Structures are given as C-alpha cells and as structure tokens.
C-alpha cells in the first residue's frame, strides 16, 4: 500500500474518531453524524496531502510538521465556516486538528511503500 492510501485511511479513521469526540459536548451532540462526516473528509484530505509529501521527502520530523500544518489549515477552514452558539469554534477544532494532522503525518512517514527512485543514468 502506498503512502497516499495510508494517509487516506489514517485520515479517515482518525478524522472519524476526532469527530466522534463531539459526543462529549452537549451543544454538538445532536449534530454528531454531520460532524463525523466532515471530520472524516477533513482527515482524508490531510492524509492525502501528507502521503504525497511523504513520497517526496523521507523525514519523520518534516512529515509531522507538514501534517500538523495542513491539519491546522483545514481545521481553521472548517472552524471559520462553522458557528456554534454564535461563535466560531476555532480553539476546539484547530487545536485537536493540529495534533491529529501531526499523527497523520507521522504515520505516512513510517508506514507504506516508498516509490522506487529512478536510477540516475
């Protein structure tokens, strides 16, 4: 399985789990299904991008950094388009999104097949 698929799968699963934690917040409890779907999609996007990056650059540190950054970005986008109780839930979405992105970045670096480098002639 190549790294992009790893990223997609990891992003899907972790995104779903992250979305599911909304169950603990009463104000979002009833929107759980929608949140989980959205979070999963967000995760998959982050995963695809991280996986692509991991194919190009093999470095655990950079993988984590890039994953975290991308995760933060998309978390921001989601938070910006979302309103809960009249305010944007920046903190609640971006912070975890940052960490989840880091995890996805780490996993895409450690797992999956790297493309064979073309022989320099």
């Amino acid at each position, binding site marked *: 399985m190549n790294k992009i698929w790893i990223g997609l799968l990891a992003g899907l699963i972790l995104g779903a789990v992250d979305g599911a934690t909304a169950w603990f917040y009463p104000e979002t409890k009833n929107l759980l299904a929608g949140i989980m779907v959205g979070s999963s999609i967000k995760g998959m996007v982050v995963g695809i991008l991280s996986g692509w990056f991991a194919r190009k650059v093999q470095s655990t540190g950079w993988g*984590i950094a890039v994953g975290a950054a991308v995760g933060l970005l998309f978390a921001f986008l989601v938070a910006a388009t979302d309103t809960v109780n009249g305010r944007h839930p920046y903190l609640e979405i971006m912070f975890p999104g940052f960490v989840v992105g880091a*995890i996805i970045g780490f996993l895409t670096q450690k797992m999956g097949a790297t493309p064979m480098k073309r022989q320099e002639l």
Partner: protein
Amino acid sequence: MELSDSVLAHLRHVAALPDLSGTRYELESEIGRGGLGVVYQALDRELDRRVALKVMDAALAGEARLIARLEHPAVVPVYDTGSLPDGRTFYAMKLVGGARLDRYIAGNPSLAERLRAMRRIGEALAFAHTRGVIHRDLKPQNVMVGEFGEVYVMDWGVEAVAGTPAFRAPDAHLDQRSDIYALGALFQFVLPAAAPPALRAIVAKAMNHDPAERYPDVPAFLADLERFQEGSAVEAWREPWWHRLRRFGERNAVLLWLLTAYVVVKFLLFFLRKV
C-alpha cells in the same frame, strides 16, 4: 666452557631469530608470540612496505595454509609463504595496526561501539565456520581493533596452549559449538559492568555448559544481538511484562507522545470550557 646467564639469554634470543637472508624480507623487530610461533615485523624490500612475519615449525604449517585461504575483511590477509634455511616455515601477512581488544575495552568505548566490535567478530567467525575452519582459541588477545574501527580476528585454528582457560569451553571436543562458547566469553569480557539483562542472557546462553543448549550457530547469536539493538525481544531472555511494556514504549515513543498530546488537548479544551 661456562656460559653466564646473560650469554645464555642472548643465545636463546638470537638463535630463535629467523634467518631471512634468502628472502625479500628484512627482519625489524619482534611483535609477539602467538599460539603457532613467533611474529616479527619485517620490511618487504620489493614492495617497500612493512609486514608481519609469522615463523613456525614446518609441522604446524598445514593448519596455517588452510587459514591462508580465508578471505574476509576481519581475517588478516596472507601475502606470502616460504621456508627458512633452518627448516621453519614463515608466512608474511598484513601488519595490523591498532589496539588489542583488551586495550580497546580499557579505553571505555560506548556500548554501541562494543556491540559493533562484537558483530564484526561474530561475522568473521560465522564466515570461517562456513569454510570449515574453527578458531579454537578465541580470546581478547587474539582480536585487534584498528583505528577506524575495523576488527581483525587472528591466530586461527590453534588449540589453546595452556593459555587462557577462562575462554575455553568445557567440551571434550573443540568444534563450532565450543567456538560459540568462546564467543560468549568474549562478549562477557566486552560488556561493561552494568550491562542490560538481555545482553547478559545472551552471554549465558552462549556459555551454557551443555553445547546443545547454546546457540546452534554463530548467525543465531548475531541475530539475537541484532534484535537487542533494534529493541525487539531477545531470544535468550524471557523478560518480565513491565520490561516488555517499556521496550514497546521506547520503540513507539513518538506515536505515543502524539496520542498523549491529543488526549491532553481534548481534556484541556473540555475542562477549560467549563470555566
């Protein structure tokens, strides 16, 4: 005539010196005494380089010829052989610089460096075994570590002559398993005082009194070493569960930290929200 002590000592020394007049070598100094014979430093006049010259009785030369066929980075290469006028045989080989293993260990290298040396020694031994050569006298005095970390195992195939019994297996017959015993004893010598229990278990397994209980061959020994270095479970040692857990934690440290961070973040957000 009455020989004084000093003359006697002198005669013993000079009559033992090899007469290299018919050869291309020029005797320079004595380096040491191995199991088979004396080793001298000599100058190869034709190639203008220094070599080690091992001089032994012709009867013992057969074993040396077998070893001369071994080609391996950790086996000292043999360049030349010949007969001396007094009937002895000589072998010219690479002059190895560096320190003997006992001196190398006295310099207190790191555990990683010690393990690397052990691996090199083990690889040499494994190679020799596949060629049917048994060392029979493996001990720190027979291993040299060069300045770049290269390792040489020397004095092959000589049965230990009342040398260092600590490294000699209790077996009646000296074969590959007794070499493994010696390898374990060597490992014990190489390890620092406070060595991890997994490594001590490897030593114990290699030095088991019953040859059947030791590692079946050198590659098995090396594999266990490698497992230790990777952080996997070592075959020789059954570790307690908390030790296994800690090892798991060390191997997957990064991931565990990231997951912890996630949980912490979630908790903080949850409880701070209430405020």
